[in-house]
């Protein structure tokens, strides 16, 4: 059993506050992903858990024991670094055996466990090579193996895939998932890639400016963002977010932004008029009058066929275009006029300060 608790954790570098009073409990066997833009404090948090940074304030508990004063090597943790950090002067087998050697595991058992773990991450053919002879993906597998072999209860992964290309990233992402399933250990994973977070996490911790802004399962985060920031961060293509004004029209409320003029669903009738943001995910925008929700006539600016889906871009008066995803290779021509409809339950509203209006 291993449970990690962060209590009132704070980290300052001089005048800069990297992490602001964070409270979080990570249960045994959970796959937690810290996600956020660079500089949001996610890596700092991970490094505090690892013991490479001392918190300015607050406590870190592992299994109920405060570990603030413990050395990184005594915290029952394994860590995989963004740079892989393999030892370039040791061959792959020696790299993997390093942790075992530090634990004074007998020679023959070392060899057995190295072989076992190499099979698990499928790098048996690399054992005799030097790290310099291995590709980026192979290096990452070796780094994983080196961490796995010591069998720590918790794995910390600091943007482990960010130095790899997209295809390899997907491949190793699946590998991480498989390892987590097989080992049933706690994984704490840091990334700035929302897609990685969505696919891997049991629970996503969204961070911004040193604070947790939302946590929940991937679907909760995606379907029920608490703020403009979270809504904007998750999803690819990103949520359509149009800045404008809420104005009264009769009994109801209307959203206005230049030519973009949509009546809002009745549940928002009580919202106070004023500046705000209208949001809808590209896949929820329906092409053609569906008979439900508000509709709008627009000209197609750009058609982007992706094979399985097609992206349609519409002009707005704002810097970002309005995007709609339709399945298949929709037969829509550029400059054609189409009707867009916005189903009531797919509309998100955000106040001027970024908070979600429900």
């Amino acid at each position: 059993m291993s449970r990690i608790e962060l209590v009132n954790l704070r980290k300052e570098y001089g005048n800069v506050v990297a992490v602001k009073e964070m409270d979080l409990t990570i249960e045994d066997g959970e796959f937690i992903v810290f996600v956020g833009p660079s500089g949001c404090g996610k890596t700092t948090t991970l490094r505090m858990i690892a013991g490479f940074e001392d918190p300015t304030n607050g406590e870190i508990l592992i299994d109920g024991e405060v570990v603030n004063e413990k050395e990184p090597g005594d915290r029952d943790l394994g860590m995989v670094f963004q740079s892989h950090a393999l030892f370039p002067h040791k061959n792959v087998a020696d790299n993997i055996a390093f942790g075992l050697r530090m634990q004074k595991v007998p020679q023959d058992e070392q060899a057995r466990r190295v072989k076992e773990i190499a099979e698990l991450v499928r790098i048996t053919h690399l054992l005799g090579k030097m790290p310099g002879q291995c590709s980026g993906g192979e290096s990452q597998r070796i780094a994983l193996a080196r961490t796995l072999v010591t069998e720590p209860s918790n794995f910390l992964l600091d943007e482990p895939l960010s130095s790899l290309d997209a295809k390899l990233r997907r491949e190793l992402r699946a590998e991480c998932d498989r390892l987590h399933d097989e080992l049933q250990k706690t994984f704490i994973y840091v990334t700035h890639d929302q897609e990685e977070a969505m696919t891997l996490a049991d629970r996503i911790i969204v961070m911004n400016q040193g604070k947790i802004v939302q946590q929940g399962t991937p679907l909760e985060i995606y379907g029920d963002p608490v703020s403009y920031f979270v809504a904007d961060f998750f999803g690819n293509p990103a949520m359509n977010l149009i800045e404008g004004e809420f104005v009264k029209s009769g009994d109801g409320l209307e959203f206005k932004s230049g030519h973009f003029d949509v009546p809002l669903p009745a549940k928002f009738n009580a919202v106070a008029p004023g500046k705000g943001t209208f949001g809808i995910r590209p896949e929820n925008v329906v092409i053609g009058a569906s008979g439900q929700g508000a509709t709008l006539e627009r000209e197609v600016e750009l058609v982007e066929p992706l094979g399985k889906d097609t992206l349609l871009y519409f002009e707005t008066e704002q810097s970002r275009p309005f995007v709609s995803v339709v399945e298949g290779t929709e037969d829509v021509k550029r400059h054609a006029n189409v009707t867009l409809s916005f189903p009531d339950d797919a509309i998100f509203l955000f106040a001027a300060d970024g908070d979600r209006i429900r």
Partner: protein
Amino acid sequence: MAMTKSQRRMSFSAFRYLVLTFWLCIVAFPIFWMVSTSFKPDKEWFAWPPVYISENATMMNYLVVWADVSEYATNEDGDLETYTQSLQRPWEALGNSALISVIATTLSVLFGAVLAYGVSRYQILSEGRMFQLLMLRMVPPIVLVAPISIWYSALGLLDSITGLVMLYFLTTLPYAVWMSKSFIDEVPREMEQAAEILGASRARTIWEVVLPLVRSGLVATFLFILILTWSEYLLALLLSKTAVVTLPVELSKYQGSTEGRVYGRQAALSVGITLPLIVVGMIIRKHLARGFSFGMVRR
């Protein structure tokens, strides 16, 4: 006429070799001249037109300098004459030089590397302090001689091996710190942290991870400082003379004596001064190529 891409590349590399060959000639000529002179009989030292490769090559210069063979020569009256070599002690000087420079260099690299590690990882010296350290080397050595002479005479360190070792150690320390810091900076911190979280102690991490990665750099630093201390003349000349003689000082004794300028002997001694460094360089060749190319660590 426009050249094709491959022609352009060829002519560029031809040009490069031309420039490098020219440079090599300039650099290597003094060494050639030294070796050539060391085999010349005395009449050819000043000969005009100059003798490049002597047809009367002789080992006499070497024998006189290194084997203390008394030389029989004819003087102007045609009588046989014997030179006396009593003042010259090249083997002792070689021993002194070897002892002093190896100890001083070892100390310098050892302490320099430890300091550099502290600077690189724990910022024990600010950037300003590091620069001041280097500024120490900007002081002309002659300026230091007077105060150091006074201290040394008070401390009884004048004309002693310990005195020179200490002086060389301290004056080369800035180089050692700066050079080894650049190598230590190349080792990513994450690599040390990876070792730490796998349970290695700090000492173990330095020994198993940092040291192997900076070894080539330290060897290069060692050779660089060894050359400095091995060939140091001014301080050795002024702070020691009679009891402790180093090779560069010894070399000066073959000049301006009653026999006139004995270039052949000097050349023979110079070859002896140069050879050990070349041998050391060859032994550690593998490290030098890596060390001077700064950074074997792939990022």
